[in-house]
């Protein structure tokens, strides 16, 4: 295997010759993922990486990758700072979906799908959450029924990120209603755009239309669409959740390039806001500015602590819920601080949503960070039950046939 340093040197040289330098700050690269052109651009960049021999660094060579180690990927990521990279493909395409296919897929699935993604030809998406599902990921009621050689899929999924731009999806469906919740599920690898699939883009209060809802109406899936075992879909979903935690925590070897894809967000420069509001000298406003700064720094420090402890085995994986919960706290605080400093300019202002109004606008999606990626309620359950060892909540659906579980009215 090529040494990391040699690889790094080659990467540096290639990057300089082949990828465009970023003008804007790193956080803005890659677009928001709301527009088709962002996705076209990501595919094109990925194709360049592939042509240059720097795509799929940590994926096995037999599936189209370079077969190198996480250290090589890390070196490439470091060198790529300042260049435009196809960050949109990191999550979920490479770090969650391709990684899970690598763990659980058939030889054919691995060969076809992973290679296509590495070439920049295909984008993946997860079809997990359901409109009536809430925090209960395994409580899936989308059904797949066997009909001779094929499966027939009916139901709906939601909160799939950029499904409209994706080619293939990992879709969790219920295939046995007589089994208890976790034991009647099957994972399918399905084409996103095919007869019977309707995609609706969900508009959020922050203006984003990144998330989608999908409706399945007698969608035909071939027998070889099954990933893992029939009725063993929860094991596959668990790998997805594992890879998601790794990706979010910064420990995935399949993430290439630095920085997150940007989201439609709010500036956090409260000092500038205070100055524009003429309140930069108000001691209370200064406290809030300092408090926000402190929370962000503690957040970084906490991520270092917890991710290090998980990596070294000093804490179990569920400790990741600690940083997840803290992240939400930081976001709550910032949303509140923005509104407090901006005062009435947060709700009506000549500058509109580009000025202090952005803090009012942002306040509307204050809870987003405590809902996406597992709610804070679930995080608190996990911390108390799996880290502190407290008794688990009573689940009325444990060990009973899923068909007998009450589903509620909404």
């Amino acid at each position, binding site marked *: 295997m090529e040494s990391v340093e040699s690889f790094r040197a080659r990467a540096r040289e290639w990057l300089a010759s082949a990828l465009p330098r970023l003008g804007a700050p790193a956080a803005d690269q890659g677009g928001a993922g709301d527009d088709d052109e962002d996705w076209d651009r990501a595919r094109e960049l990925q194709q360049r990486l592939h042509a240059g021999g720097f795509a799929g660094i940590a994926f096995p060579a037999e599936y189209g990758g370079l077969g190198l180690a996480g250290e090589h990927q890390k070196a490439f990521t470091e060198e790529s700072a300042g260049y435009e990279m196809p960050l949109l493909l990191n999550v979920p395409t490479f770090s969650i979906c391709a990684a899970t296919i690598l763990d659980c897929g058939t030889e054919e699935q691995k060969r076809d799908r992973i290679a296509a993604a590495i070439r920049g030809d295909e984008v993946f998406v997860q079809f997990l959450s359901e409109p009536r599902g809430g925090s209960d990921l395994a409580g899936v009621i989308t059904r797949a029924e066997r009909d001779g050689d094929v499966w027939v899929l009916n139901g709906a999924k939601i909160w799939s990120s950029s499904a409209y731009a994706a080619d293939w999806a990992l879709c969790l469906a219920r295939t046995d209603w007589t089994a208890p919740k976790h034991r009647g599920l099957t994972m399918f690898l399905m084409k996103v755009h095919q007869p019977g699939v309707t995609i609706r883009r969900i508009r959020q209060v922050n203006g984003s239309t990144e998330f989608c809802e999908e409706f399945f109406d007698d969608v035909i899936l071939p027998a070889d669409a099954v990933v893992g075992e029939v009725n063993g879909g929860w094991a596959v979903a668990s790998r997805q959740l594992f890879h998601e935690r790794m990706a979010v925590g910064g420990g995935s070897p399949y993430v290439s390039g630095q920085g997150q894809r940007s989201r439609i967000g709010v500036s956090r420069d409260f000092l500038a806001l205070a100055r524009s509001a003429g309140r930069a000298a108000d001691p209370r406003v200064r406290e809030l500015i300092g408090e926000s700064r402190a929370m962000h720094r503690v957040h970084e420090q906490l991520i270092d602590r917890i991710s290090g402890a998980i990596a070294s085995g000093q804490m179990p994986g569920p400790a990741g819920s600690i940083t997840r919960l803290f992240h939400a706290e930081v976001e709550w605080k910032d949303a509140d601080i923005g509104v407090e400093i901006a005062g009435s300019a*947060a709700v009506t202002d000549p500058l509109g949503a580009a000025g202090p109004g952005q803090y009012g606008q942002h306040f509307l999606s204050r809870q987003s960070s405590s809902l996406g990626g597992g709610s804070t309620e679930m995080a608190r359950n996990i911390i108390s039950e799996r880290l502190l060892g407290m008794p688990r909540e009573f689940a009325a659906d444990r060990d009973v046939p899923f068909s007998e579980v009450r589903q509620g009215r909404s």
Partner: protein
Amino acid sequence: MDLDLSPDQKLFRSTTKKFLESETPLERVRELAAAPQGFDRDWWERGAELGWAAMLVPDDPGAGRISGEGLLGLIVIAEEMGRMVAPGPLLPVNTVITALVESAGGPDHSAELDELASGALVAGWACDEPGTGWGTGPLRTVLTPVPGGFVLDGAKDRVEAAGQADRFLISAQSADGPAQVLVRAGTPGLSIEPSWSLDVVRRFGEVRLDGVQVGPEALVGQPGQAAAAMRRQNQVAAVLSCAETCGVAGRVLEFTVEWAFDRYSFGRPLASYQALKHRFADMKTWLEACHATTLAAARAVAAAAPDAAELASVAKSYVGSRATDIIQDCVQMHGGLGVTWEHDLHLYLRRATVNRALHGTPEEHRRRIADLMEA
């Protein structure tokens, strides 16, 4: 709000509720989001027939005091409007009416008062000035006497319904102290710049005053004597804002409690989870406190009680901050749906956030309370 409504108040509630449900249900409110003015004049006039703008006008026009009973009826209407995130200039019109009724010794404005009460006329309340908080410092807009009247120079912002207003009540500094004048829209030198708003249907604007000439009949009360009326206007505005916000938060908590019963997770309704139950208990407690303090403030303002200013600030600070706490936690209870455009939650959150920030933030009212303690 009040658990013991008078027969009149029950009537105001049911007629307003019925009108809003048929004329401006939430689907219509969403349509109006795209309309430049946010409400129809015709709709407002028909609403005014239900008393929306007539209730503060006293039976005895010389009383110099708004109708206390009227205010207690008006908060019932404001609460219903909050429950439906209704459009319309309820607050500015009734605040301007307060000014006209409670400013003694000036020109007669009874014709305008009648037209406001009937809904034919809409008035904007131009009390805030660009770059300043609520009630801080002296007014920068000035009223200068000239032969045949006065000239106004300055600017006002956060003026609700500025684009629809036929008249503007403008506060200004005169040589004798604070003054108020009622200026016609379209008067030369008065221009309006629409502002952005977080609310779906409530529009605001900046009113610029460049050498605006007005006759002496425009005065509301006597120059230098406006301070007392302005205090009353602030109190009425605080009470109406709080009452509306009570309706907003009350409606949101109501449908979120229903949701908690209907929505199942792990085979159990959300309402069976103790961690959520305890948060609902907090929210119920806060909501009752919002109602209690709004009603107490309304009664004190209605009676012009000595502690009316304090109680108005108590209510505005408490309701302002707690209502958004309640709504945000209700968003959380709804999960991802709660932050979608499609769900109505954000319409309510917008209204509560706007009401929280205008006419004094919770922080500003807390400081005011401390000032009043030393007064």
